[in-house]
């Protein structure tokens, strides 16, 4: 990781912090749009992914971290996305007549 320059770093951290707070407000407002669950989920998850990227990139310094660390963390995230993808795909492969348990 590059050595941080405290003055610059402080300004960056404050800017990221304010952006995260504004995006939290945006998430709550977007949920009140009554646009249907699919659109609401899309908007909420898009904002969450953006907020998560900001935290990982700037607070956890992934943006300036060694490639080994980035690969390690991104691999874990990709495995998670793959697992979620398989689950969602499996949903569309349920044979007719299966009774859901609720």
């Amino acid at each position, binding site marked *: 990781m590059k050595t941080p320059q405290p003055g610059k770093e402080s300004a960056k951290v404050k800017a990221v912090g304010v952006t995260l707070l504004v995006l*939290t407000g945006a*998430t*709550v407002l977007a949920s009140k749009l009554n646009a249907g669950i699919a659109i609401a989920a899309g908007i909420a998850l898009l904002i969450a992914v953006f907020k998560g990227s900001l935290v990982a990139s700037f607070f956890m310094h992934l943006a300036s971290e060694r490639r080994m660390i980035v690969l390690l963390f991104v691999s*874990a995230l990709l495995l998670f996305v793959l697992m*979620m993808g398989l689950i*969602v795909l499996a949903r569309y492969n349920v044979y007719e007549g299966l009774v859901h348990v*609720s």
Partner: protein
Amino acid sequence: MEAIPYTVKPREETGLYNGKLGIWLFLASEVMLFGALFSTYVILRLGSLKWPAGSSILNVPIGALNTVVLITSSVTMVFAWLSLKEKNFSGFRRQMGFTILLALLFLLVKWFFEYTPKFQHHLYPGKNTFLAIYFVLTGLHALHVVGGIAVNAYFWGPGSRMWTMEPDRFTNRVEIAGLYWHFVDLVWIFLFPVLYLL
């Protein structure tokens, strides 16, 4: 007795000090732990004929308040580490103190304004699938917050003695604690919309 190597100096093979590689491996395993539970949520939700809107059971303003509290604590955590980089120990104590207080505030809000009212209305994990996954996910996250408070309080208090003898090593320890704390914040950033808003 030989001191533990590579606590400050990076190891040649990895270019990292050992603690940093260790915490990132741990965080990768944490992604899979929470990932498994998020996947469980998706399976339960997609497989359910009826699912309540989170906002009809949970308190959205309180959840949003706790999001603000955790994000602010992440900011103060970075400032605590930056203070050490600037050799400003009193600044570190102040910022780390804020981080710990904000984490305690998160837990107090969670307990008194979220869990307690639900228990008073007999909304326990066994009541329905939504509440079961809500309590498991937020409960596990709260345990992580407790762990973070314990580690941060140690570095704020007795652990800070290391600063006078080995300042670089202490700075690295705080960086590692910070990485964990930001991950806890990161998990909440996804938990809040998934449970409260969708």
